[in-house]
């Protein structure tokens, strides 16, 4: 089975923050993972690359924890799947 969206988001964050993957959980807060504003920029950049999506600045500002980040990415990935032609 291919990696879930949640799994991929957590992996991107763990890689960027140089953290063991098991320490990055959906219930983790940015504070626990010591993710500051600049780290968030880096993570958004890597998530855009990982999923080939575009994350809006204003939407990104509303995200306060990992659960919201995962939900936001799932929403964007699903929206992209629905808008692209099937082949």
């Amino acid at each position, binding site marked *: 089975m291919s990696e879930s969206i949640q799994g991929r988001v957590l992996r991107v964050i763990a890689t960027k923050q140089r953290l063991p993957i098991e320490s990055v959980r959906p219930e983790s807060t940015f504070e626990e993972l010591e993710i*500051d*504003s*600049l780290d968030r*920029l880096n993570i*958004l*950049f890597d998530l855009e690359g990982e999923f080939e999506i*575009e994350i809006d*600045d*204003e939407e*990104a*500002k509303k995200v306060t924890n990992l659960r919201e980040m995962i939900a936001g990415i799932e929403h964007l990935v699903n929206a992209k799947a629905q808008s692209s032609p099937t082949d």
Partner: protein
Amino acid sequence: MRRVAITGMGVISASGRNQGEFWRTLSTGISAIDVISSLDVSQMRFKNAAEVRGYDPESEFSPKDLALLDRFAQFALTSANEAVSQAGVEWSDDLRERSAIVTGSCLGGRGSEEAGYWELFHHNRTRVHPLTIPLSMSNAGASHISMRYGIQGPVYTVSTACSSSAHAIGQAFWMVRSGMAPMAIAGGSEAPIFIGGLKAWEAMRVISKDTCRPFSADRSGLVLGEGGAMLVLEPLEVALARGVQPLAEIVGFGMSSDASHITQPSPEGAARAMRNAIADSGMAAEQFGYINAHGTGTQANDRTEIAGIRAAFGAHAGHMAISSTKSMHGHALGAAGALEAVASILSLRHGILPPTANYTAPDPECDLDVIPNEARKVEVEACLSNSFAFGGLNAVLAFKAYR
């Protein structure tokens, strides 16, 4: 220690291509922010900037000179020409030999650099243009002013991101005050509107897709601007002796470093720079009636700056007027401090405080008098001009009306 007068100023910006135009638009609260016209922004997530419009380099410079001038250096030179002309500088061999030029620029001629690299990376060229280095070096503006007027004293460039030209003016002020230089031309210029630069700012996620609304609850980021501004600084007694009307006095300069975070500002660092500028001026905090704020329109800057103003001025903060003219001329990065120094001096001179344009709703975290949308007729004795840079480097200038 000498008292130091400003006797000449030059400006080129989205809000006007000379001092008169600049003041007319700022004092009427008109924002120059508009859709970028100089390049294709279809692949950009933001579309707006404050561009210099109606500027024709060919009418300002000969083709031979133009080949050596990146847009940022053109802005440095045109604004210096206006400033020197207004000051009516009486050149002598001694004045030329000892006068100073200090310019500020964040990016220098990186637009020309990009054009050179574009050929290399996209068109598989194996060479870049031979003038790429002299066009793109950040001191090109200072060097061209030096060559134009034969100024041979201390000439250099400061690059401290968005504080660059405030640091430059402050250092020139101290050189003239101490007697080290008999006259100085100081300011800054910036030409940040090129694809790579815009993309780098886009990735920072601090650019508004709408417009610049400093201190407004619904502010959504900064808007880039371009331009240049230069001041002529000389001892007050020299200016008076040669019958020149000082535009204002520059009385204080304060610097500090946050020493905390590469992009997040600190209220304490901002407050220390303001306190240092006030102390350097020898004036009481209560004598200051206006602050031309750094006021970028980002969530972080504006609330931090207001907290810093409260920390520096205490109860007097509530009796001051504060505005951000970036709402009109955009954030011209390394030129911002110089453009805002000119705005500050003209405010003192005309007894009119320019507004914070595009203001829509009060923010409880920015609860000082920010002169929303309409200029105000008030004669203040002295003002500060704040500049705070990425990297936590702060520079604050203090000006006093000359009446």
